C-alpha cells in the first residue's frame, strides 16, 4: 500500500526535476491555503448569519406566512430534477449511497441552521427527488410522459407561487424559477429561428438571421434593460411585472444562442435522411417534426443543458431591473449594519451554492452526452 502510494507520488509529483520543484512550491502553498480557509471556516467564521437570514437568501421578501408555497416549489423542483435524471442516469449503489447521505445531510444542515420543521421539509423534498429518480428509471417511463410532467411541474410552480404577486419573488427561488422558465421558453423560439434561418423563403431567412446575429452581438444586460424599458411604452395601460419583463428579455436573448445550437444540430443530419423523407412524399412539416428535429435535437441536448448554466449565472444580472435574485439577496443582508462584519460568510455561502448548482448542471450535461452517444447511431 505504502509502496503503491510512494510510486504514485514519484510518478505524478516528482518524476522530473522541474516537476519536483513545482510540487515543492505548490503543495505547501495549497496546504497553507486549505489550512487558513479551514481555520477561518471552522473557528473564526460566524455562520449564524447564514441561518438567520436563510429565508431572505432563499426567497427574498416572499411573505413569511405564505412560505408553504415556496416549499411546494422546492419539492416540485426536486421531483423534476430527479425525474430528469431518471431518464439518463441509472441509480446505482454508489450513487444511491451518496444521494442518501446528501439527503440526510441536507435535512440536518437545514434543521441546525433554521429549525427542525424546515429540516424535515428539506429532507422530504430531497427524498421525493430520489424517489422520482428511481421511479422514472425503474418504470422505464416514456420520455414524452416525463417531459410533459416536467412542463406541468413548471406551470404548477408558477400557479402556486404567484398569488402573493410577482414583486415579492426573490432569492435563490427567483434565480432557479427564472432559469427554468427561460430555458423552456427559449426552446420553441430558438427552434423556429433555426428553421427560419434555413428556410427557402427569403424574408423568413433574412429576418431570422438578422435577429440571431443582432442578439449575439449585444450584451445580455442591454437586452434585459431594453425590454424592461420598452414594454411599458408598448402597453402603457397594463403594468407587466418586472419579473415577467426580465424573463422576456432573457428568453429573447438566449433564444438566439439556442437557434445557433439547433442549427448545428440540423446541419449534422445527413442529407440522405431528408431525401428519404421526401421520397416518401412527406411534407416539410412532417419532415422537420418527425425526421429532422428529433435527430438534430439529440445532438444538441448536452449543449442546451450546458446553456441552462449560462442562464442561471446570467440571472445574477436581474438586479439592474430591481429584482432580488440570490446574489442580490446576499448583498441586501450585508446592507443591514448588524451584519456588516459578515461579508466573507455570506459570499462564501453564495459561492458554495453557485458552485454546487453549477456542478450539478455540468454533471447532468456530461452524463446526458454519454447517454445519448451510447443510445444513438
Amino acid at each position, binding site marked *: 500500500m505504502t509502496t503503491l502510494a510512494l510510486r504514485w507520488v514519484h510518478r505524478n509529483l516528482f518524476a522530473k526535476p522541474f516537476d519536483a520543484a513545482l510540487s515543492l512550491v505548490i503543495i505547501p502553498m495549497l496546504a497553507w491555503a486549505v489550512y487558513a480557509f479551514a481555520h477561518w471556516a471552522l473557528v473564526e467564521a460566524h455562520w449564524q448569519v447564514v441561518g438567520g437570514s436563510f429565508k431572505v437568501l432563499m426567497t427574498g421578501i416572499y411573505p413569511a406566512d405564505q412560505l408553504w408555497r415556496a416549499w411546494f416549489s422546492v419539492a416540485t423542483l426536486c421531483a423534476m430534477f430527479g425525474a430528469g435524471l431518471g431518464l439518463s442516469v441509472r441509480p446505482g449503489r454508489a450513487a444511491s449511497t451518496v444521494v442518501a447521505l446528501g439527503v440526510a445531510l441536507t435535512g440536518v444542515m437545514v434543521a441546525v441552521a433554521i429549525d427542525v420543521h424546515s429540516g424535515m421539509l428539506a429532507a422530504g423534498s430531497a427524498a421525493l427527488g430520489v424517489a422520482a429518480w428511481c421511479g422514472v428509471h425503474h418504470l422505464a417511463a416514456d420520455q414524452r410522459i416525463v417531459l410533459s410532467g416536467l412542463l406541468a411541474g413548471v406551470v404548477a410552480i408558477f400557479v402556486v407561487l404567484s398569488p402573493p404577486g410577482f414583486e415579492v419573488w426573490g432569492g435563490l427561488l427567483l434565480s432557479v424559477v427564472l432559469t427554468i422558465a427561460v430555458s423552456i421558453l427559449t426552446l420553441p423560439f430558438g427552434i423556429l429561428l433555426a428553421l427560419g434561418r434555413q428556410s427557402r423563403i427569403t424574408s423568413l431567412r433574412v429576418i431570422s438571421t438578422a435577429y440571431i446575429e443582432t442578439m449575439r452581438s449585444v450584451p445580455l444586460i442591454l437586452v434585459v434593460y431594453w425590454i424592461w424599458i420598452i414594454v411599458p411604452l408598448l402597453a402603457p395601460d397594463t403594468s407587466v411585472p418586472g419579473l415577467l419583463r426580465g424573463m422576456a428579455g432573457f428568453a429573447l436573448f438566449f433564444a438566439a444562442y439556442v437557434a445557433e445550437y439547433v442549427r448545428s444540430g440540423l446541419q449534422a443530419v445527413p442529407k*440522405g435522411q431528408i*431525401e*428519404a423523407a421526401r*421520397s*416518401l412524399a*412527406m411534407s416539410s412539416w412532417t419532415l422537420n417534426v*418527425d425526421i429532422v428535429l428529433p435527430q438534430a435535437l*439529440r445532438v444538441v441536448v448536452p449543449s442546451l443543458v450546458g446553456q441552462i448554466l449560462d442562464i442561471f449565472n446570467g440571472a445574477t444580472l436581474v438586479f439592474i431591473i430591481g429584482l432580488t435574485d440570490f446574489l442580490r439577496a446576499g448583498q441586501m443582508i450585508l446592507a443591514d449594519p448588524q451584519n456588516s462584519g459578515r461579508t466573507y460568510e455570506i459570499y462564501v455561502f453564495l459561492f458554495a451554492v453557485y458552485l454546487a448548482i453549477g456542478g450539478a448542471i455540468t454533471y447532468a450535461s456530461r452524463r446526458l452526452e454519454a447517454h445519448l452517444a451510447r443510445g*444513438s447511431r
Partner: protein
Amino acid sequence: MNAIQIPAAATSREIIVSIISLNKSFGAFHVLKDVDLDVGRGEVVVIIGASGSGKSTLIRCVNGLEMYQSGRLTVDGFSMPTEADRAIGGERELARIRKGVGMVFQQFNLFPHMSAIDNVAIAPIRVRGRKPDEARANALRLLDRVGLRDHAHKLPSQLSGGQQQRVAIARSLAMEPHIMLFDEPTSALDPEMVGEVLDVMRELAREGMTMMIVTHEMGFAREVADRVVYIDHGRILETGTPAEIFDRPTHERTRTFLSRVLRH
C-alpha cells in the same frame, strides 16, 4: 447518336413513366442529354453504365429528388415540374407523384431514431393519414414479407446492412407505390448480404411491380430485367432485352463497358 427507342407498346403495356428529351445539368456540367425512355406498367428496367454516366441522376429525376431543366417527364399521368416550375411552387404535384413512387437508396437512409416497424409505418400515418394501429399492423406484414418480422422492434443500428436495406424496401412498399426506384441498392453491402436483398427484389418483380433499377449486378440484371438500358456520358446509347444487350451489343462502347464489368 440518338437513343434507340424500343417502345413499351411493343409489349402492349400501359406507359407509367414517360421521359421525353430530358436535359439536366449541375451548373456547367451537362449530366443528362436528350434522354428518351418509356417504362410500361409491370416492366422491370435495369439501367447500367459507368459511374458518373448519369444513371442515378436519371432515376432520381423520376421522383423529383433532382430537378431537370428541359424536356418532359410524366409519372403515373402527372407531369413532373421542371426546375423553373419548382422555383415558384409545384410542391403539390411533386407530393402527388412521390406518393406513387417508392425509392430505395444505396445508403439505406433508414431513420436511425425509429425502430424498424416505425420506419415502415411513419409515412402511411403522416402522409396517407392511416390510423397508427392499422399502419403498424401493415408494417409488420411487410416486414414479414421481407423476412424481418422478428426484428421489427430493433433500431436500424442493431441491424446488418442487408437487413437495413430490406427494411428500406418495406418502408417504400408501405406507401403502396406504383413504381419502385432502386439506386444501386446492393453497392454498399458486404458481398454475403447482396443475395438477401436481390431475393426480395426478384420477388417484387415476379409480383408484377414496375421497377427501375440502377445496379452493377449484371447477373441479376440479365435474370429479372425486361429491358436493359445502357447510359454513356448522359445519353442512352442502347436499349434492349438482356439477351440483346449482354450477348449482342451493337455499340463499341457498350461492348467495352460490358467486357470490363463482366470480367470479374
